[in-house]
């Protein structure tokens, strides 16, 4: 089982819808410990991405991922722009030349994205950032690939791992980003970046469940 270019586009559209629907929720999370713009910025970026998807019907997966990354870099701003931009740019590099993505490709793609985000943001898991959702998802996909499970099952497990990672950010004290200025006061709040990253993994599981 594997996913092709059309499936990737469906996933990205679903993520854009999810961000649009929960824009206010993401911004509310951000106003507790950041600067109240995460939902607004991600929605602006994903709206711009959706505007480009129609023109990408003939592109391959890697080219589409790179276009998404560059669009996010130039429209999101804040910290989310370079981080989500880098994530998708790395997805593009990792999927170069592939017409379809098998589970092993997904594991490699998410791993490349996580490495890119770590390097750009100089953050580690446990710092209360999007990595806290993405790293467990990567680990789950890597293990699933080794176990020979199906892509659909693996993506569902990865989404659950991302959700657990997101919830685990609640008691954490932020060490990166604007939330870190709050020190101990950042504890008790769910990280907005980890939340949008969970949405990314959840929409992958939902739209690609047949994979």
């Amino acid at each position, binding site marked *: 089982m594997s996913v092709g270019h059309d499936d990737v586009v469906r996933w990205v559209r679903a993520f854009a819808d999810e961000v649009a629907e929960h824009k206010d929720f993401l*911004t509310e999370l951000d*106003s507790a410990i*950041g*600067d*109240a*713009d995460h939902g*607004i*910025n991600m929605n*602006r970026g994903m709206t711009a991405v959706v505007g480009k998807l129609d023109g990408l019907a003939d592109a391959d997966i890697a080219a589409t991922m790179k276009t998404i990354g560059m669009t996010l*870099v*130039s*429209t*999101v*701003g*804040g*910290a*989310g*722009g*370079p*981080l989500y931009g880098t994530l998708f740019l790395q997805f593009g590099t990792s999927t170069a030349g592939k017409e379809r993505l098998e589970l092993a490709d997904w594991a490699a793609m998410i791993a490349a994205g996580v490495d890119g985000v770590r390097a*750009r*943001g100089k953050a580690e898991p446990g710092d209360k950032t999007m990595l806290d959702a993405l790293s467990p998802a990567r680990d789950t996909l890597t293990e699933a690939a080794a176990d020979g499970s199906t892509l659909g099952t693996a993506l569902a497990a990865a989404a659950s791992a991302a959700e657990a990672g997101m919830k685990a950010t609640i008691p954490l*004290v932020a*060490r*990166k*980003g*604007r939330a*870190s*200025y*709050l*020190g101990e*006061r950042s504890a008790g709040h769910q990280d907005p970046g980890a939340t949008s990253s969970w949405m990314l993994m959840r929409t992958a599981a939902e739209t690609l469940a047949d994979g």
Partner: protein
Amino acid sequence: MKKLINDPENVVREALAGVTLAHPDLVRVNIDPHYVVRADAPVQGKVALVSGGGSGHEPMHGGFVGRGMLDAACPGEVFTSPTPDQMEAATKAVDGGAGVVHIVKNYTGDVMNFEMAAELCRSEGTDVESVLVDDDVAVQDSLYTAGRRGVGTTVLMEKIGGAAAEERRPLKEVADICRKVNDNGRSMGMALTSCTVPAAGKPTFELGDDEMEIGIGIHGEPGRERMKVKPVHDIVGLMATPIVEDLPFSSGDRVLAFVNGMGGTPLIELYVVFNELASFLDGRGITISRNLIGSYITSLEMQGCSITLLKLDDELTALWDAPVRTAALRWGV
């Protein structure tokens, strides 16, 4: 939310349109990507200064574009860092062949976006030096935070660095002057009220009628400590003590004292703050040899203020006194 706006989505664009109409003698404005450059850019043979950050801090940075200060400013959405393509376009528009200094306030988003922009500019052969501003003593500088925020010292760096560039000093020297300003400047801010990001529609944090927040940044992010409002005499002590102890500023020092309004505080209160600050510093033997009082680095309509002290020597004093002609700061010309 009550604001003088049409549509929250269009605030930045419509404000830039206003700037274009108001100051054609000083600046040119480019829309998509958004940037403001001095009217005579690029100035051949002069190091160019490019700064940028989220909107909502006016007059910073667009109001500081002009002779003797910035060559370009990149405004992002309200409280949101501008993007690398904006910064790259602005850098190219002002590059006069002597290199470009990027003035970056230490916020995660600004740092990452400017980092990507500098990579893009260098890959196309433009010499870029990045200078970080991180002067906010309210934030503990440790491995466990994103580091100190860039606040009031940014304004002083843009003025002093701009004067050094105007003297046709080389890139490395202009960047080092900027770093010297950062090394000798310290700030602290406080809020009496929150502020409302137009696109969010409600205040970023809640603050009771009798409360104040000490150690705030410039993005409506909460500070480190909340307490009952006190007389300004006490508030100035709460802010100035950690500033003075941090550098440290000591007896015999000459300083530039910058009392900044956060956007919603009247000038009369800023002068009350300055009066308290002057007696606080006098008590420690510190001389105020230059001052700046007004709302220059703001947080939308927030009530409150910040205090910045910059330790001066003859070089910094001369560069501060040098002529400047921008929408928000203008003397000597």
